[in-house]
Protein backbone atom coordinates (compact mmCIF):
# COMPACT_ATOMS: atom_id res chain seq x y z
CA UNK A 1 0.00 0.00 0.00
CA UNK A 2 1.53 3.30 -1.06
CA UNK A 3 0.96 6.47 0.97
CA UNK A 4 -1.26 7.80 -1.82
CA UNK A 5 -3.39 4.68 -1.77
CA UNK A 6 -3.65 4.86 2.01
CA UNK A 7 -4.71 8.49 1.67
CA UNK A 8 -7.47 7.56 -0.76
CA UNK A 9 -8.72 4.84 1.61
CA UNK A 10 -8.57 7.21 4.55
CA UNK A 11 -10.61 9.85 2.71
CA UNK A 12 -13.06 7.20 1.52
CA UNK A 13 -13.40 5.95 5.12
CA UNK A 14 -14.27 9.51 6.17
CA UNK A 15 -16.99 9.77 3.55
CA UNK A 16 -15.13 12.31 1.44
CA UNK A 17 -15.30 12.33 -2.34
CA UNK A 18 -12.50 10.31 -3.96
CA UNK A 19 -11.55 9.42 -7.51
CA UNK A 20 -13.20 6.11 -8.33
CA UNK A 21 -10.21 4.88 -10.33
CA UNK A 22 -7.86 5.66 -7.47
CA UNK A 23 -10.24 4.00 -5.02
CA UNK A 24 -10.47 0.89 -7.19
CA UNK A 25 -6.70 0.68 -7.38
CA UNK A 26 -6.37 1.13 -3.61
CA UNK A 27 -9.00 -1.49 -2.85
CA UNK A 28 -7.21 -4.01 -5.04
CA UNK A 29 -4.18 -3.89 -2.75
CA UNK A 30 -3.89 -7.03 -0.64
CA UNK A 31 -3.86 -5.12 2.66
CA UNK A 32 -6.65 -2.67 1.79
CA UNK A 33 -9.25 -4.46 3.92
CA UNK A 34 -6.82 -4.57 6.83
CA UNK A 35 -6.25 -0.82 6.52
CA UNK A 36 -9.97 -0.10 6.61
CA UNK A 37 -10.42 -2.40 9.60
CA UNK A 38 -7.61 -0.65 11.44
CA UNK A 39 -9.21 2.70 10.74
CA UNK A 40 -12.48 1.37 12.15
CA UNK A 41 -10.77 0.00 15.26
CA UNK A 42 -9.03 3.30 15.78
CA UNK A 43 -12.28 5.17 15.49
CA UNK A 44 -13.91 2.87 17.98
CA UNK A 45 -11.03 3.37 20.39
CA UNK A 46 -11.43 7.15 20.14
CA UNK A 47 -15.19 6.96 20.59
CA UNK A 48 -14.87 4.74 23.63
CA UNK A 49 -13.77 7.81 25.52
CA UNK A 50 -16.60 8.53 27.93
CA UNK A 51 -14.98 11.42 29.77
CA UNK A 52 -17.17 14.46 30.31
CA UNK A 53 -16.93 17.76 32.11
CA UNK A 54 -18.48 17.72 35.57
CA UNK A 55 -22.18 18.43 35.98
CA UNK A 56 -21.42 21.43 38.22
CA UNK A 57 -19.27 22.91 35.51
CA UNK A 58 -21.99 22.36 32.91
CA UNK A 59 -24.68 23.95 35.09
CA UNK A 60 -22.51 26.97 35.84
CA UNK A 61 -21.72 27.39 32.15
CA UNK A 62 -25.36 27.04 31.15
CA UNK A 63 -26.38 29.80 33.54
CA UNK A 64 -23.56 32.05 32.45
CA UNK A 65 -24.17 31.57 28.75
CA UNK A 66 -27.93 31.96 29.09
CA UNK A 67 -27.38 35.24 30.92
CA UNK A 68 -24.92 36.41 28.26
CA UNK A 69 -27.31 35.40 25.47
CA UNK A 70 -30.14 37.30 27.16
CA UNK A 71 -27.98 40.39 27.52
CA UNK A 72 -26.95 40.12 23.90
CA UNK A 73 -30.53 39.79 22.76
CA UNK A 74 -31.70 42.73 24.87
CA UNK A 75 -28.83 44.84 23.49
CA UNK A 76 -29.83 43.85 19.98
CA UNK A 77 -33.48 44.69 20.72
CA UNK A 78 -32.45 48.06 22.12
CA UNK A 79 -30.35 48.77 19.05
CA UNK A 80 -33.22 47.79 16.75
CA UNK A 81 -35.65 49.98 18.69
CA UNK A 82 -33.23 52.91 18.54
CA UNK A 83 -32.76 52.42 14.83
CA UNK A 84 -36.50 52.24 14.24
CA UNK A 85 -37.06 55.38 16.31
CA UNK A 86 -34.30 57.21 14.42
CA UNK A 87 -35.78 56.20 11.08
CA UNK A 88 -39.26 57.29 12.17
CA UNK A 89 -37.90 60.62 13.36
CA UNK A 90 -35.96 61.13 10.13
CA UNK A 91 -39.05 60.27 8.09
CA UNK A 92 -41.18 62.67 10.10
CA UNK A 93 -38.66 65.48 9.74
CA UNK A 94 -38.30 64.78 6.04
CA UNK A 95 -42.06 64.83 5.57
CA UNK A 96 -42.40 68.02 7.54
CA UNK A 97 -39.65 69.71 5.50
CA UNK A 98 -41.10 68.51 2.20
CA UNK A 99 -44.54 69.70 3.18
CA UNK A 100 -43.18 73.14 4.05
CA UNK A 101 -41.39 73.36 0.75
CA UNK A 102 -44.51 72.35 -1.15
CA UNK A 103 -46.60 74.90 0.68
CA UNK A 104 -44.11 77.62 -0.20
CA UNK A 105 -44.09 76.64 -3.87
CA UNK A 106 -47.78 76.03 -4.53
CA UNK A 107 -49.04 79.66 -4.25
CA UNK A 108 -46.09 80.94 -6.28
CA UNK A 109 -46.91 82.95 -9.45
CA UNK A 110 -46.12 81.88 -12.94
CA UNK A 111 -43.51 83.73 -14.86
CA UNK A 112 -44.88 86.73 -16.76
CA UNK A 113 -43.63 89.99 -15.41
CA UNK A 114 -40.81 91.50 -17.29
CA UNK A 115 -37.42 92.67 -16.46
CA UNK A 116 -34.89 93.91 -18.92
CA UNK A 117 -31.51 92.59 -19.57
CA UNK A 118 -29.15 93.26 -22.38
CA UNK A 119 -28.38 90.42 -24.68
CA UNK A 120 -24.99 90.38 -26.26
CA UNK A 121 -25.29 91.13 -29.99
CA UNK A 122 -24.00 88.88 -32.68
CA UNK A 123 -20.47 90.07 -33.35
CA UNK A 124 -20.60 89.19 -37.05
CA UNK A 125 -23.86 91.08 -37.78
CA UNK A 126 -22.74 94.23 -36.03
CA UNK A 127 -26.10 94.64 -34.29
CA UNK A 128 -26.39 96.52 -31.02
CA UNK A 129 -27.50 95.03 -27.72
CA UNK A 130 -31.26 94.24 -27.46
CA UNK A 131 -33.43 93.90 -24.40
CA UNK A 132 -34.58 90.40 -23.56
CA UNK A 133 -37.54 89.20 -21.51
CA UNK A 134 -36.96 86.90 -18.53
CA UNK A 135 -39.52 85.39 -16.18
CA UNK A 136 -39.56 86.63 -12.62
CA UNK A 137 -41.07 85.34 -9.39
CA UNK A 138 -42.91 87.53 -7.00
CA UNK A 139 -42.12 87.09 -3.36
CA UNK A 140 -44.23 88.48 -0.57
CA UNK A 141 -41.49 90.44 1.15
CA UNK A 142 -39.33 92.17 -1.42
CA UNK A 143 -41.47 92.51 -4.49
CA UNK A 144 -39.82 90.68 -7.34
CA UNK A 145 -36.85 88.45 -7.81
CA UNK A 146 -35.46 86.39 -10.62
CA UNK A 147 -36.67 82.78 -10.89
CA UNK A 148 -33.17 81.54 -11.38
CA UNK A 149 -30.08 83.23 -10.11
CA UNK A 150 -27.95 81.36 -12.57
CA UNK A 151 -29.77 82.53 -15.69
CA UNK A 152 -29.80 86.21 -14.78
CA UNK A 153 -26.50 87.87 -13.90
CA UNK A 154 -26.48 90.85 -11.57
CA UNK A 155 -27.15 94.21 -13.28
CA UNK A 156 -23.76 95.60 -12.38
CA UNK A 157 -21.94 92.76 -14.04
CA UNK A 158 -24.23 92.84 -17.00
CA UNK A 159 -23.64 96.54 -17.55
CA UNK A 160 -19.94 96.13 -17.33
CA UNK A 161 -20.04 93.32 -19.86
CA UNK A 162 -22.26 95.30 -22.25
CA UNK A 163 -20.04 98.34 -21.98
CA UNK A 164 -16.99 96.20 -22.56
CA UNK A 165 -18.67 94.46 -25.50
CA UNK A 166 -19.71 97.74 -27.12
CA UNK A 167 -16.24 99.14 -26.60
CA UNK A 168 -14.67 96.12 -28.28
CA UNK A 169 -17.02 96.38 -31.19
Amino acid at each position, binding site marked *: MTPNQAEVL*SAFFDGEAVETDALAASLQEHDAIE*FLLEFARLRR*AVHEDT*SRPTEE*FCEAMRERLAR*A*DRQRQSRRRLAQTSLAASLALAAALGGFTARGALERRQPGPRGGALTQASQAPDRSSGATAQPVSLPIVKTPDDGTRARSKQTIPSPGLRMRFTEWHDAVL
Partner: protein
Amino acid sequence: MPRTASDLFERYHVKTYRYFLRTVGSHDVAQDLTQELFLRVVRHLRSCSPGREVAWMFRIARNLVVDYRREHSERSLPLAQAVGGRTEATQLVAFGLSEALGLLADADREVFLLREVAGLDYQELAEACDTTPQAVRLRVSRARGRLKALLSRRLSADENRRRNEDG
Protein backbone atom coordinates in the same frame (compact mmCIF):
# COMPACT_ATOMS: atom_id res chain seq x y z
CA MET B 1 -27.90 25.59 12.85
CA PRO B 2 -27.41 26.95 16.38
CA ARG B 3 -27.01 30.71 16.62
CA THR B 4 -26.64 31.23 20.34
CA ALA B 5 -23.75 30.32 22.57
CA SER B 6 -26.12 28.26 24.71
CA ASP B 7 -27.15 26.14 21.74
CA LEU B 8 -23.54 25.62 20.71
CA PHE B 9 -22.68 24.67 24.28
CA GLU B 10 -25.45 22.07 24.44
CA ARG B 11 -24.36 20.52 21.19
CA TYR B 12 -20.60 20.67 21.47
CA HIS B 13 -19.42 21.01 25.04
CA VAL B 14 -18.66 17.29 25.39
CA LYS B 15 -16.83 17.14 22.06
CA THR B 16 -14.80 20.24 22.75
CA TYR B 17 -14.00 19.02 26.25
CA ARG B 18 -12.79 15.67 24.86
CA TYR B 19 -10.77 17.42 22.21
CA PHE B 20 -9.09 19.53 24.90
CA LEU B 21 -8.62 16.53 27.16
CA ARG B 22 -6.99 14.51 24.39
CA THR B 23 -4.80 17.44 23.54
CA VAL B 24 -3.65 18.72 26.93
CA GLY B 25 -4.12 15.56 28.98
CA SER B 26 -5.65 17.19 32.08
CA HIS B 27 -9.28 17.23 33.14
CA ASP B 28 -9.00 20.58 34.95
CA VAL B 29 -7.21 22.27 32.08
CA ALA B 30 -9.68 20.80 29.60
CA GLN B 31 -12.58 22.27 31.62
CA ASP B 32 -10.85 25.63 31.87
CA LEU B 33 -10.25 25.67 28.13
CA THR B 34 -13.85 24.64 27.47
CA GLN B 35 -15.05 27.51 29.63
CA GLU B 36 -12.76 29.97 27.90
CA LEU B 37 -13.87 28.69 24.51
CA PHE B 38 -17.56 29.28 25.17
CA LEU B 39 -16.96 32.66 26.73
CA ARG B 40 -15.17 33.66 23.55
CA VAL B 41 -18.00 32.18 21.52
CA VAL B 42 -20.60 34.29 23.33
CA ARG B 43 -18.48 37.41 22.86
CA HIS B 44 -17.74 36.96 19.18
CA LEU B 45 -20.56 34.87 17.76
CA ARG B 46 -21.85 37.84 15.78
CA SER B 47 -18.65 37.92 13.77
CA CYS B 48 -19.18 34.33 12.59
CA SER B 49 -20.84 33.72 9.23
CA PRO B 50 -24.07 31.74 9.53
CA GLY B 51 -23.57 28.04 8.85
CA ARG B 52 -19.90 28.12 9.76
CA GLU B 53 -20.25 28.08 13.51
CA VAL B 54 -18.70 24.65 14.03
CA ALA B 55 -15.52 25.23 12.06
CA TRP B 56 -15.25 28.71 13.58
CA MET B 57 -15.68 27.38 17.11
CA PHE B 58 -13.10 24.64 16.68
CA ARG B 59 -10.73 27.14 15.18
CA ILE B 60 -10.97 29.07 18.45
CA ALA B 61 -10.50 25.79 20.32
CA ARG B 62 -7.39 25.02 18.32
CA ASN B 63 -6.00 28.50 18.96
CA LEU B 64 -6.63 28.07 22.68
CA VAL B 65 -4.62 24.86 22.62
CA VAL B 66 -1.81 26.57 20.73
CA ASP B 67 -1.78 29.41 23.26
CA TYR B 68 -1.89 27.00 26.16
CA ARG B 69 1.00 25.01 24.75
CA ARG B 70 3.03 28.14 24.22
CA GLU B 71 2.46 29.31 27.78
CA HIS B 72 2.96 25.91 29.38
CA SER B 73 5.56 24.36 27.14
CA GLU B 74 7.36 22.87 30.11
CA ARG B 75 4.21 20.96 31.02
CA SER B 76 3.36 19.62 27.58
CA LEU B 77 3.11 15.89 27.18
CA PRO B 78 6.71 14.67 27.37
CA LEU B 79 5.95 11.25 26.00
CA ALA B 80 8.85 11.03 23.61
CA GLN B 81 11.13 11.65 26.59
CA ALA B 82 9.12 9.26 28.73
CA VAL B 83 9.75 6.38 26.37
CA GLY B 84 13.35 7.38 26.02
CA GLY B 85 13.10 7.92 22.31
CA ARG B 86 11.95 4.35 21.76
CA THR B 87 9.19 4.85 19.26
CA GLU B 88 9.15 1.47 17.58
CA ALA B 89 5.70 -0.01 17.29
CA THR B 90 6.72 -3.12 19.16
CA GLN B 91 7.84 -1.04 22.10
CA LEU B 92 4.68 0.98 22.19
CA VAL B 93 1.98 -1.64 22.18
CA ALA B 94 1.69 -1.22 25.93
CA PHE B 95 0.76 2.42 25.49
CA GLY B 96 -2.76 3.57 24.95
CA LEU B 97 -4.28 5.84 22.42
CA SER B 98 -3.44 9.00 24.37
CA GLU B 99 0.22 8.14 24.49
CA ALA B 100 0.28 7.24 20.81
CA LEU B 101 -1.42 10.52 19.98
CA GLY B 102 1.32 12.25 21.92
CA LEU B 103 3.84 10.90 19.45
CA LEU B 104 2.17 12.42 16.42
CA ALA B 105 3.23 15.70 14.90
CA ASP B 106 1.09 18.53 16.28
CA ALA B 107 -0.55 19.27 12.93
CA ASP B 108 -1.40 15.60 12.34
CA ARG B 109 -2.75 15.08 15.85
CA GLU B 110 -4.82 18.21 15.57
CA VAL B 111 -6.66 17.20 12.40
CA PHE B 112 -7.03 13.62 13.53
CA LEU B 113 -8.69 14.64 16.80
CA LEU B 114 -10.87 17.26 15.17
CA ARG B 115 -11.95 14.63 12.66
CA GLU B 116 -12.55 11.76 15.07
CA VAL B 117 -13.56 13.52 18.28
CA ALA B 118 -15.38 16.55 16.90
CA GLY B 119 -16.59 14.96 13.67
CA LEU B 120 -15.61 17.84 11.39
CA ASP B 121 -15.51 17.10 7.66
CA TYR B 122 -12.46 17.98 5.59
CA GLN B 123 -13.78 21.37 4.52
CA GLU B 124 -14.55 22.33 8.13
CA LEU B 125 -11.17 20.98 9.20
CA ALA B 126 -9.47 23.10 6.58
CA GLU B 127 -11.27 26.20 7.88
CA ALA B 128 -10.55 25.36 11.49
CA CYS B 129 -6.87 24.63 10.86
CA ASP B 130 -6.28 27.39 8.35
CA THR B 131 -5.23 25.05 5.57
CA THR B 132 -6.63 23.31 2.48
CA PRO B 133 -8.86 20.21 2.32
CA GLN B 134 -6.06 18.50 0.41
CA ALA B 135 -3.60 19.10 3.23
CA VAL B 136 -6.19 17.90 5.72
CA ARG B 137 -6.65 14.69 3.76
CA LEU B 138 -2.92 14.08 3.81
CA ARG B 139 -2.58 14.84 7.53
CA VAL B 140 -5.47 12.64 8.55
CA SER B 141 -4.09 9.78 6.50
CA ARG B 142 -0.60 10.28 7.92
CA ALA B 143 -1.94 10.33 11.47
CA ARG B 144 -3.92 7.15 10.87
CA GLY B 145 -0.94 5.43 9.34
CA ARG B 146 1.24 6.34 12.31
CA LEU B 147 -1.38 5.36 14.87
CA LYS B 148 -1.98 2.13 13.04
CA ALA B 149 1.71 1.35 13.26
CA LEU B 150 1.83 2.26 16.93
CA LEU B 151 -1.37 0.63 18.06
CA SER B 152 -2.26 -2.16 15.69
CA ARG B 153 -1.29 -4.92 18.09
CA ARG B 154 -3.13 -3.32 20.93
CA LEU B 155 -6.20 -2.64 18.85
CA SER B 156 -6.24 -6.22 17.58
CA ALA B 157 -5.85 -7.51 21.12
CA ASP B 158 -8.73 -5.32 22.27
CA GLU B 159 -10.81 -6.63 19.40
CA ASN B 160 -10.09 -10.25 20.36
CA ARG B 161 -10.84 -9.58 24.02
CA ARG B 162 -14.14 -7.99 23.11
CA ARG B 163 -14.99 -10.91 20.86
CA ASN B 164 -14.23 -13.39 23.66
CA GLU B 165 -16.33 -11.40 26.10
CA ASP B 166 -19.25 -11.32 23.70
CA GLY B 167 -18.90 -14.99 22.73
